[in-house]
């Protein structure tokens, strides 16, 4: 009986901790949307963070996009070859890259690279009292630190997703051209043959949502870091894990919603 009571207490405590965390995250998100559209906008900071996030991830996105394009084409060829359908490769790569790989792989890479960076940077500022120092100087730290980073991450990741699709298709083209011999125009015509407005629109929506998620999760974890330097590591780690979790949930929802319109 006693054990049951303590289990109930433990459960209710755990549930209340989760509910408080959800409430805090919701409040943080609402605060972002409130502050994001009111003056001052700190445009210099938005451009600075957008530029840094975009530029620093460019090399990794280029490499990953190109290699995934080449490998995906290479792995798909034997299956299509057995049906004598290698001419479908450009179309297959177009659909795979634009509908799924572009936004998703870019988001996963950026969740690791950008999300952890934002989480660690803000976490470090929190535990060394730099955020408090802003507050006591009558500066709104949320507006100065959080909003520009979320905007910067959202814009950069959106652009990087488009860039990833371009590089991924380039990798696919080089592989197909080497094996089947195809010119660029024929490749592009085939690749975009089955791509409709809904595919492109969904892909753009995904990129925007994933960018916003990575920015919000990274800033939330960093801004609320505690427990000294250990807290900085925890914030960086949780920023990645939580962002990836949300990205997959969002992927599922967006694909389901898009399928309703097909």
């Amino acid at each position: 009986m006693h054990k049951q009571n303590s289990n109930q207490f433990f459960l209710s405590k755990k549930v209340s901790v989760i509910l408080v965390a959800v409430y805090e995250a919701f409040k943080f998100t609402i605060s972002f949307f409130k502050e994001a559209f009111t003056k001052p906008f700190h445009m210099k900071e938005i451009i600075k963070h957008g530029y840094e996030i975009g530029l620093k991830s460019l090399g990794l996105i280029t490499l990953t996009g190109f290699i995934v394009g080449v490998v995906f084409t290479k792995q798909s060829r034997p299956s299509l070859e057995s049906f004598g359908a290698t001419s479908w490769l450009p179309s297959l790569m177009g659909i795979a890259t634009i509908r799924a790989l572009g936004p998703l792989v870019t988001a996963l890479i950026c969740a690791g690279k950008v999300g952890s960076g934002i989480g660690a940077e803000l976490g470090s500022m929190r535990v060394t009292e730099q955020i408090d120092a802003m507050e006591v100087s009558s500066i709104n730290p949320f507006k100065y630190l959080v909003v520009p980073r979320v905007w910067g991450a959202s814009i950069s990741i959106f652009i990087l997703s488009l860039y990833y699709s371009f590089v991924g298709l380039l990798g696919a083209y080089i592989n197909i051209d080497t094996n089947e011999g195809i010119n660029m125009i024929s490749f592009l015509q085939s690749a975009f043959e089955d791509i409709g407005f809904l595919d492109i629109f969904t892909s753009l929506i995904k990129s925007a949502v994933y960018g916003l998620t990575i920015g919000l999760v990274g800033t939330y974890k960093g801004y609320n870091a505690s427990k000294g330097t250990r807290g900085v590591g925890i914030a960086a780690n949780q920023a990645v894990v939580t962002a990836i979790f949300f990205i997959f949930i969002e992927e599922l929802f967006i694909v389901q919603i898009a399928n309703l319109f097909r």
Partner: protein
Amino acid sequence: MNKFKPNSGKNEPVIVINRLFKSFANSKVLDGIDLELNKGENVAVLGRSGSGKSVLIRIIIGLLRQDKGTVRVLGKQLRQLKTKELNALRLHIGFSFQNSALYDSMNVFQNIAFPLTMNVKNLSKKEVKNKVEEVLESVGLGDKIYEMPSDLSGGQCKRIGIARTLILKPQIMLYDEPTSGLDPVTSAEINELILNLQQQYNTSSLIITHDLTCAKTTSNRIALLNEGRFLKVGNFDDVFKSDNKHIKSFFDYNFIQ
């Protein structure tokens, strides 16, 4: 600069704390304390680590909220202020952090100019530079203007942290452990700086410390905090001569150290 007009009466206290209570979980940190800081006065709050000194100073600047009791700063009751009003009030209060809290991505110039440019509009670049140079000179670090915080010593970081608060010409200075982690010579320099700045900028200061020398050198009055209550408030000699066993043990231990 802002709409907030602080009281300017000469004998009026600038900080009045009344029956202040603060707890964290089941631990009582401040247990109904009262304190006044008068205009032009320096008061040191002495106490052991964990006695609630930093919590007190954080409530005064509005980083923490008290559970019960009132805190009036420059005539304004903190709990009744909206965010905008609190920010306006904070422009008249300088807060020097225990670990300096310098922005590590900015150099010394940017660190000091930041609160100024964010709060005072329409200043030319030359005006900002002149003001930064002026406060840097007053803390004796005019030659460090373009250094990064990571290249400075602990004492220099403390001075830059103080300079950053002075740029907005505060009426009240709150120092959180200004000499902690510093060698005796640098501590003495910081103590002297606190006194010089009080005269130069005509500030009233609340100094949170466990350093007896700092408290004795810089303050007109001392308040000794123990387990959330002030054991004694008065000048250094009054407190030093007290028969209270907690006060005696605090002084004895510090002198042995």
